[in-house]
């Protein structure tokens, strides 16, 4: 007979509880075809959206940036990258989202940058892209291992992180961290101001 911890009840020795557990263990059959189709529809819908989002992100567009804003953004970005190069060992990862412009719809265009010279891919994931690691790949510069992407993001507070080589989840070390709400992993927090807000 199995030994029980003193705080553990022993339903196997208790007909009433054993009968209850037995009833509750009875299999439940649901409409498998319908249920599976619904799940896979959602899965594929995300994939379709992914193609649309990639097409949107890779479509050429004009970004208007005031000289002062561009200079400030470039300086902050450069400082962040230099800092990360000193701080991290391989794979070096760093990001610094910088609001440098707004799209025609008014959504701020946020630039994310990484230094990851040994990575074969880097992706941005966040609540703005359903945490889809295929939705927002970063592009590598020709030298220096710098990865970057610009993403239009709605004003408000967002959580995000980076996925290196398709598997390694990294919060942004340059941004405030927020505890994972669903899966217990730390994410980074980003607050995008309303257009016109200082």
């Amino acid at each position, binding site marked *: 007979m199995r030994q029980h*911890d003193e*705080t*553990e*009840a022993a*339903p196997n020795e*208790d007909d*009433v*509880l054993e*009968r*209850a*557990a037995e*009833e*509750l*263990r*009875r*299999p*439940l*059959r*649901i409409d*498998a075809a319908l*249920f*599976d189709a*619904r*799940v*896979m529809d*959602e*899965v*594929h819908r*995300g*994939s379709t959206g992914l193609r649309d989002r990639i097409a949107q992100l890779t479509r050429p567009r004009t970004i208007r940036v005031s000289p002062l804003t561009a200079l400030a953004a470039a300086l902050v970005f450069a400082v962040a990258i230099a800092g990360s190069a000193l701080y991290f060992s391989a794979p070096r990862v760093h990001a610094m989202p910088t609001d440098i412009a707004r799209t025609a719809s008014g959504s701020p265009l946020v630039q994310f940058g990484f230094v990851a010279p040994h990575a074969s891919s880097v992706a941005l994931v966040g609540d703005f892209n*359903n*945490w*889809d*690691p295929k939705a927002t790949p970063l592009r590598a510069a020709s030298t220096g291992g710098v990865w970057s992407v610009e993403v239009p993001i709605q004003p408000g507070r967002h959580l995000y992180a980076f*996925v290196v080589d*398709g*598997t390694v*989840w990294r919060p942004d070390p340059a941004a405030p961290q927020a505890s994972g709400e*669903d*899966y*217990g*992993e730390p994410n980074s927090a980003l607050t995008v101001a309303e257009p016109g807000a200082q």
Partner: protein
Amino acid sequence: MVPDAGVSPSVELSDGALVDIVLKGDSEAYARLVARYRDRYARFALHMLGNREDAEEALQDAFVRGYRSLHRCTEPARFGSWLLAILANRCRTAGGRNARRERRFVSAEDRHYAIALDHPAETSALREEINRALARLDADQREAFLLKHVEDLEYEQMAVVTGAGVSALKMRVKRACERMRRMLTEGEDAPAR
């Protein structure tokens, strides 16, 4: 999607292998994981939430979240436990949101469930009594009882799924068993202690 990355349905692949295939771009392989855990976890969600619609919605949401976060499954061989953690979390959220909504007892009101059980009619009263007692447990006690005595998880596995400590889980199971026993034998409501 990776062309020609399909998996023969006749090959029984491990969870870890299927997760790897999905992460390499073959989203269709995820259907195999859905089929593998669908019925068992539907039962867990139904017992946690008390009605079929909420249970199926929670389960569907858990599977979709699981797919979109699959790269965060650090131990693909334990995909089932990882998915159960997402589902349990989803059930907790839904259970809190629906706390004021009356639970429906499956044996009495869910005809599909009763048919699926294919069970003699005379047991329906007992089944309803069991479900009523289960519904009266605190959510954390109900979750612990189901994971331990219906899903047959070890306490260490339960800790991974729930995020609670082993000692706390043992206490929840103990109290759940005491209350269930009292409700089923004495017919009392057995308020939480």
